[in-house]
């Protein structure tokens, strides 16, 4: 809402207050002023008269003017390029030294001719072009013949010495979409007198229009008929008022409609009385028809839209837009003026569906005063009488389905102070409420009843009263004291703790923690659906197709992050993200890790391609810190997404018989798709909730042997398909209690090993809790292990 300080000053005493002060007062009373700006500005301005106008000797469009600036400054020579510069014209002159919004005027020589100042257009003073006639934008401003030469208060003379406040009206204060209500508010905040709006009823004729409403969506509908009006240009004061409030002047009748709406907050609509099919205007919501609106476009009207009908034809879409059929034009003589109350929801639906939003519809959507239409129509009539020479005025015909009720709120000094943490006196509280136009009945003992003014749609309970009090008296009165609450164990839940542990662990291991959008495209949602394959949530009203589906996996998002980084030469990446995942039947918490390029072991001096076992390492590290022993989960060769993962280098993570995650190398085809270059990339995704839900016991420290261990190394040659974990398992099984550990320490393929064969080097640790093992014991056991490995896997020792 734009508010002209000049217009405001006609309603409320602003003595000693400028735009900044008012803005500050409003802002700290909860009505934020986003900007204070001048409608026009300029220093060193003066009104002058062109005495001589000669063509510039060295130009085909410049003129050399002699301009009389009055007694004080005499006559100056000014070079001017305006096509309308001519002898006898009264002009605005910016003298040397003048600061205009865009330029500073300096003494100059223009193509050899001295120039001491500039003749200005209003554009050059900062007035927006939308408020100007075309000819005003093409040349210098032409002042009236009687403009006083030598007048230095040029902006004042033009009525442009105004400041404009841009109010951010919050949803609960739709009453402030009215200049008069802003004046009331300013009056309350600064404790200043506010003038009453006066509108004596003008009735000198009969009106036989029939009004009514067939729907709850229009609770009140009033019409005033005025005859014999003259449509013409508005007077200057009206044009200036509208300009300062951000509205363009059209003609007197349209301008009056806008003026009344801006002043009172009540939107009006006007009908050409001679163009109605029948002398009736009835609100209804049951029509289906094609509606040709003022903008000459056709709109589909459906049941639920509020239609103002005459003889079952649509004359207006209530609160949204009038019809072309009965629009007021320059030929209009007789009019019906409508002031009605429309249901916010209906107006919102209609205006949203049809893409028609206006100052009127916005006011209905936010809420209007349902009991003021008679006053508003008479206020309008007074203006029409003055500006449009209206002659015959009917009485207001009104349909009203509601009864005006006095809204009262009971409260007390104690209750208000208790909510605010303040110690205001009863007098202070009541004074504020009365300044805000509440009528307050004192009930004794600090108790009172407040009657809410009818324009304040937002005040319904005593919490609301407390807000009124504090926003006027100021939050600096609130004592800042921490609440005295019972002690509690402020702590993260088990799950939250585990999530943090995992994040801190992965960060410590050098991975970067990422954040990506949950909304993805359809196509993206299909990519790397590694863990969750459930039906996703799809947005009904997406902004773009890129953000349409609530993702069910993170992998694609993180691979896209990798792709972004690789394209910027950040080629070696270790990334992870943890995010909540919701699909129609599942609520999960996913961890995703992406590794791309090389693991930098010593900067670039020592680097090695990330491989399957790097990812396996991150997985095991997470499992270990969560206390999930390796007997509680297992890896199986991945069975799904084999066109996205390398089929031979990927694994499902299985816990309690369920697949809870997947990891592996990207399929070579996908490396290309994500533009990751000729490198390696790995991805892991798993559901952490499944992990967090596994019960983990406390650690019980076990005694360890006092006796030394013995180690033996075996280099085994066996079939490539034999997995290391089976070999280890066999060794441990055979070694029973005496094999403490068996670990792979080398893998060799190729050379003289033979195709389809590999060599595994195992180091076996033997030991006992009771004694030092003898060589013989160890040798026997080793022989037995070799024998069994040969039997089970046809493994033999490498020579």
């Amino acid at each position, binding site marked *: 809402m734009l508010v002209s300080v000049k217009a405001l000053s006609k309603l409320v005493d602003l003595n000693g207050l400028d735009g900044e002060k008012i803005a500050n007062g409003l802002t*700290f009373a*909860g009505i*934020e002023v986003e900007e204070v700006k001048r409608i026009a500005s300029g220093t060193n301005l003066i009104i002058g008269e062109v005495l001589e106008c000669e063509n510039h000797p060295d130009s085909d469009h410049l003129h050399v003017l002699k301009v009389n600036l009055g007694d004080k400054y005499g006559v100056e020579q000014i070079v001017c390029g305006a096509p309308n510069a001519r002898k006898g014209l009264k002009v605005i002159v910016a003298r040397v030294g003048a600061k205009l919004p865009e330029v500073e005027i300096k003494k100059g020589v223009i193509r050899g001719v001295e120039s001491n100042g500039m003749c200005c257009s209003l554009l050059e003073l900062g007035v927006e072009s939308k408020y100007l006639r075309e000819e005003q934008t093409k040349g210098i401003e032409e002042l009236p013949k009687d403009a006083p030469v030598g007048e230095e208060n040029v902006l004042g003379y033009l009525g442009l010495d105004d400041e404009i406040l841009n109010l951010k009206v919050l*949803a*609960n*204060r739709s009453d402030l979409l009215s200049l008069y209500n802003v004046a009331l508010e300013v009056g309350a905040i600064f404790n200043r007198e506010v003038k009453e709006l006066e509108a004596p009823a003008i009735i000198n004729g009969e009106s036989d229009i029939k009004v009514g409403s067939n729907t709850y969506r229009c609770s009140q509908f009033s019409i005033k008929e005025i005859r014999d009006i003259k449509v013409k240009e508005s007077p200057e004061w009206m044009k200036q008022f509208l300009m300062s409030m951000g509205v363009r002047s059209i003609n007197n009748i349209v301008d009056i409609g806008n003026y009344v709406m801006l002043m009172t907050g009540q939107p009006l609509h006007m009908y050409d009385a001679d163009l109605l099919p029948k002398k009736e205007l009835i609100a209804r919501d049951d029509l289906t028809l094609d509606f040709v609106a003022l903008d000459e476009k056709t709109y589909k009207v459906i049941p639920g839209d509020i239609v103002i009908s005459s003889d079952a034809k649509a004359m207006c879409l209530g609160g949204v837009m009038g019809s072309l059929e009965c629009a007021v034009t320059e030929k209009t003589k007789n009019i019906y003026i409508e002031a009605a109350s429309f249901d*916010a*929801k209906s107006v919102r639906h209609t205006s949203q569906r049809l893409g028609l939003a206006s100052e009127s519809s916005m006011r209905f*959507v936010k809420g209007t005063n349902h009991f003021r239409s008679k006053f508003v129509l008479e206020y309008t009539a007074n203006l029409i009488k003055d500006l449009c020479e209206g002659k015959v005025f009917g009485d207001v015909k009104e349909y009203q389905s509601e009864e005006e009720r006095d809204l009262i709120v009971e409260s007390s000094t104690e209750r208000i102070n*208790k*909510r*605010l*943490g303040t110690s205001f006196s009863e007098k202070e509280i009541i004074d504020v409420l009365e300044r805000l136009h509440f009528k307050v009945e004192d009930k004794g003992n600090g108790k009172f009843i407040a009657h809410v003014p009818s324009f304040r749609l937002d005040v319904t309970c005593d*919490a609301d009263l*407390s*807000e009124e009090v*504090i*926003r006027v008296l100021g*939050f600096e009165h*609130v*004592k*800042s*004291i*921490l*609440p005295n*609450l019972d*002690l*509690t164990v*402020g*702590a993260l839940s088990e799950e*939250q703790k585990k999530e943090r542990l995992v*994040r801190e662990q*992965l*960060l*410590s*291991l*050098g991975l*970067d*923690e*990422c*954040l*990506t*959008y*949950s*909304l993805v495209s359809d196509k993206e949602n299909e990519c790397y659906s590694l863990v969750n394959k459930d039906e996703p*949530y*799809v*947005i*009904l009203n*997406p*902004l773009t197709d890129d*953000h349409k589906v*609530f993702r069910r996996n993170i992998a694609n998002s993180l691979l896209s*992050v990798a792709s*972004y980084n690789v394209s910027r030469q*950040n080629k070696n990446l*270790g990334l992870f993200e943890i995010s*909540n995942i919701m699909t129609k039947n599942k609520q999960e918490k996913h961890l995703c890790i992406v590794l791309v390029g090389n693991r930098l*072991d*010593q900067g670039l001096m020592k680097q090695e391609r990330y491989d399957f076992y790097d990812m396996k390492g991150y997985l095991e590290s997470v499992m270990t810190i969560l206390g999930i022993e390796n007997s509680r989960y297992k890896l199986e060769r991945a069975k799904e997404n084999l066109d996205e993962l390398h089929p031979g280098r990927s694994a499902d993570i299985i816990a309690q018989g369920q697949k809870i995650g997947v990891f592996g190398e990207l399929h070579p085809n996908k490396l290309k798709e994500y533009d990751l270059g000729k490198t390696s990339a790995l991805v892991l995704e798993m559901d952490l909730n499944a992990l967090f839900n596994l019960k983990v016991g406390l650690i019980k420290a076990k005694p360890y042997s006092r006796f030394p261990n013995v180690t033996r190394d075996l280099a085994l040659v066996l079939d490539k398909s034999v997995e290391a974990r089976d070999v280890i398992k066999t060794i441990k099984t055979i070694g029973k209690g005496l094999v403490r550990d068996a670990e792979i320490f080398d893998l060799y393929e190729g050379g003289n090993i033979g195709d389809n064969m590999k060599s595994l080097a195992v180091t076996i640790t033997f030991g006992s809790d009771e004694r030092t093992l003898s060589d013989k014991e160890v040798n026997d056991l080793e022989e037995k292990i070799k024998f069994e490995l040969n039997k089970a896997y046809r493994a033999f020792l490498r020579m």
Partner: protein
Amino acid sequence: MDISKLNEIKEKAIERIKDAKNSDELVEIRNVFLSKKSELMSMMSTLGQMEAELRKEMGQKINEVKMNISNALDKKVQEIKELELQKTLEKEVIDISLPAKGKESGGKNPFFVVRDEIIDIFLGMGYEVMDGPEVELDHYNFELLNIPQDHPARDMQDSFYINENVLLRTHTSPVQARTMEKKAGKPIRIICPGKTYRRDDDDATHSHQFAQIEGLVVDKDINIGHLKATLELFAKKMFGEKREIRLRPSYFPFTEPSVEVDITCANCGGKGCNICKGTGYIEILGGGMVHPNVLKMNGYDPEVYSGFAFGIGIERVAMLRYGIDDIRKFYTDDVRFLHQFKKKI
């Protein structure tokens, strides 16, 4: 055999030891002067033929010389070893400016740095951390927060809908309602960090996805002063002890009175600068006293209980704190950005 011969041997040995350059030479010297075949040892073997008196005297002398030589040798060995070690160490000098072997932590998106820190501040004040669904029922997101169908405030938060009753939550406030439902009339002290979604076009300051931390305290005799003190504490911990806060009246449907909270500008300390647009203050969060209707709808008697609530924008706090100029940077994850945030204190 005489004393002078002994002295001669001794001097000769000492001389050679002195001139020795390495341990090999020393081994040889030891051989020449102290082995069984050495002159000294052969002199020793002649002792038996001497008279007792002389034998004793000469024996002592020979031993003396032997000890002298042996000690000198040991000392020299030690010296040379030192010298040789010194040389080895000199050879082993490395370039200490070469890269370290990877022990670095990863970079934490500053979004998480700030989120974790805010959580920790409130954990310290005894708050619980609650979670809530991002795909939420209209009922919790709007209805129970005093935002009925067609309330004008629904215009303020244009939402992503899944169907008529289900949407992506537009704020973390539905967790207020869910918590009140769960706590069923008992006092509440919670925060809820989480992702939220609104139909905003992405630009430097708007994002269709962003995150908030909701706070809610419900108990007997809670007033705005408690909210003010709590947020003051938060602001000082987050932005520095010198920061002051100021409350400005505002409007949210689920709080009454509602406030916007401004903090003195960290850049200019409240004097006014570009960052705070000359006001000396920067808006950081919103809050207020829980609306009596919200308490009532969620099973708390507003005549007995009162409460305060607030919502902090995580990205906004992070942007202010680290001077980040574009909210999209949090969601782009350029590692050159992430790597700036490795510091854990």
